């Protein structure tokens, strides 16, 4: 995959010293290839016009590009076109579901939305490992409806088990919301089991697919999940666009959380009637240039092949796990050596705060993420406040992850918590 690095202008970035910067924060946001940047610019320079409104040929052309982008993304994740809603980001997509269900529970959306409504005593099941984006919206929904939020606990590695999840499910379970891939542990959730357990209880499954869709083959239809969310900026696409997937029959009745122009059929001063999915959710001017660019990102990923990408990244993860597990005083969060995991590895360094680790690595030209990664409950369960995470994407190289491991080896020495000498990377 080393050839494709040339597609990424960011990697030409002049770096201070002789070694180029190693960008190991793709789980936060990915770099973008020239093809994606060019596609957006091409649209903006030559095809920019409103969509879905007006009679002009320019509007028709712009509308076609916009809806073709939807079709491309839909195909990429095994969805129908009416099952793909543009949102601001993945967080927005999850909120679209939780807020819509809150509205349905309050009687908005009428009889057709009643099947989505929650009642006091109903239960929502999540895990302790969830990103705040897949936690706080459910807390708010519980607060609004009187439903109870139950969390599957994690073990000392930050992992949860399907048995524990099964034990949390009950007759009142209405929603099960989990990440397909944890953004801290790299754990791959057994989605098929989650779906069958949840559906057996009559509960709906909301999948946080932020860390999976950009990195491995996805078929929401085949998986049978009810809703799913992911973001453009983590899959070589633009900021400012996310995707809500939902089964058509659910999206057609879910009340729209945001309202405004383009979502309606007839509007009077007193009432508004909403269009079917996806347009009922897309209030106001949409991220059109971003949709066009996201479709290009999909084509770019597909040209490489999602299987090849998953393989590449799991090799990199294995390389990091192996390297780090030889380092004294460095603890790996998530699955250890030999266990399948996604291309991201978070570690905790005994006696050195993650911010200091991150600073040390930054000085060595290695960009990682330090902090709680929007997963405070998980970190609290592990007894730490923050960790250091390296994450990969298609463009990440063996050399980059080796540099990460090597630099990590010098951290404790520098901060004087072991006898190891400070690494040579320090100026």
């Amino acid at each position, binding site marked *: 995959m080393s050839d494709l690095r040339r597609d990424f202008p960011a990697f030409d970035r002049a770096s201070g010293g002789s070694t180029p910067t190693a960008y190991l924060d793709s789980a936060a946001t990915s770099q973008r290839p020239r093809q994606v940047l060019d596609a957006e610019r091409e649209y903006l320079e030559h095809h920019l016009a409103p969509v*879905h*409104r*007006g*009679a*002009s*040929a320019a*509007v*028709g*052309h712009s*509308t*076609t590009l916009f809806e073709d982008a939807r079709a491309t993304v839909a195909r990429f994740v095994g969805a129908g076109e009416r099952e793909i809603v543009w949102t601001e980001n993945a967080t927005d997509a999850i909120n679209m579901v939780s807020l819509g269900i809150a509205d349905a529970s309050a009687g908005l959306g009428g009889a057709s939305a009643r099947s989505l409504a929650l009642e006091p005593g109903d239960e929502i099941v999540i895990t302790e490992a969830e990103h705040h984006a897949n936690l706080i919206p459910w807390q708010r929904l519980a607060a609004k409806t009187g439903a109870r939020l139950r969390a599957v606990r994690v073990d000392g590695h930050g992992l949860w088990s399907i048995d524990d999840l099964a034990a949390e499910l009950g007759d009142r379970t209405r929603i099960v919301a989990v990440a397909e891939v944890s953004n801290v542990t790299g754990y791959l959730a057994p989605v098929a089991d989650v779906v069958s357990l949840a559906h057996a209880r009559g509960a709906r499954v909301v999948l946080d697919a932020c860390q999976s869709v950009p990195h491995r083959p996805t078929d929401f239809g085949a998986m049978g999940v009810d809703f799913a969310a992911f973001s453009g900026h983590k899959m070589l696409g633009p900021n400012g666009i996310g995707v809500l997937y939902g089964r058509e029959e659910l999206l057609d009745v879910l009340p729209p959380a945001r309202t405004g122009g383009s979502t*309606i*059929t*007839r509007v009077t001063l007193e009432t508004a009637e909403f*269009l079917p999915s996806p347009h009922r959710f897309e209030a106001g001017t949409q991220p059109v240039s971003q949709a066009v660019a996201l479709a290009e990102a999909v084509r770019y990923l597909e040209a490489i092949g999602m299987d090849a990408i998953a393989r590449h990244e799991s090799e990199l993860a294995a390389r990091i796990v192996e390297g780090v597990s030889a380092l004294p005083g460095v603890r790996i969060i998530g699955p250890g050596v030999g266990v399948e995991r996604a291309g991201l590895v978070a570690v905790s360094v005994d006696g050195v705060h993650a911010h200091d680790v991150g600073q040390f690595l930054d000085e060595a030209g290695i960009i990682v993420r330090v902090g709680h990664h929007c997963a405070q409950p998980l970190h609290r369960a592990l007894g730490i406040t923050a960790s250091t995470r390296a994450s990969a994407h298609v463009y990440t190289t063996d050399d980059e992850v080796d540099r990460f491991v090597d630099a990590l080896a010098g951290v404790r020495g520098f901060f004087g918590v072991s006898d190891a000498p400070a690494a040579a990377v320090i100026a």
Partner: protein
Amino acid sequence: MSGLSGLYQEIILDQARARHGDGPLDHADAEHHEFNPTCGDELTMRIRLDDSHARIAELAWQGDGCSISMASASTLAELATGRDVDEVRELIDGFRAMLRSQGQGEPDEELLGDAIAFHGVSKYVMRVKCAMLGWVALEACLTEAGSPTHPAVE
């Protein structure tokens, strides 16, 4: 024919003025209201079937819209009144296929009759909905009236 005169053929402008089938219909077997959210245009289609439920005995519509939508409803009224439900479903399928052709291919004049005048609309994506307004409404009426679904489904 290219440009505006390809879209607004004389026959279309004539039909838009003629508004065949415009009016109320009592004792309808089915009624369907269609709304074009883009422009706010609306159209209500009503039909009465014959006793065997196999034939459209009467058809009438009321609505307000652009010349394309009004002309296509008028043309439809002429073509569908008195015809077998199955034939009309075939006609609607053919009309939809023509409008989705983006100006490609030759429309089937035998099947579509005067409706081939709307072939030019297929080059104008934003106007396809206008041309379909009455036809979609009629299709919904046929379904509502419980007539057997045509095998060549969409």
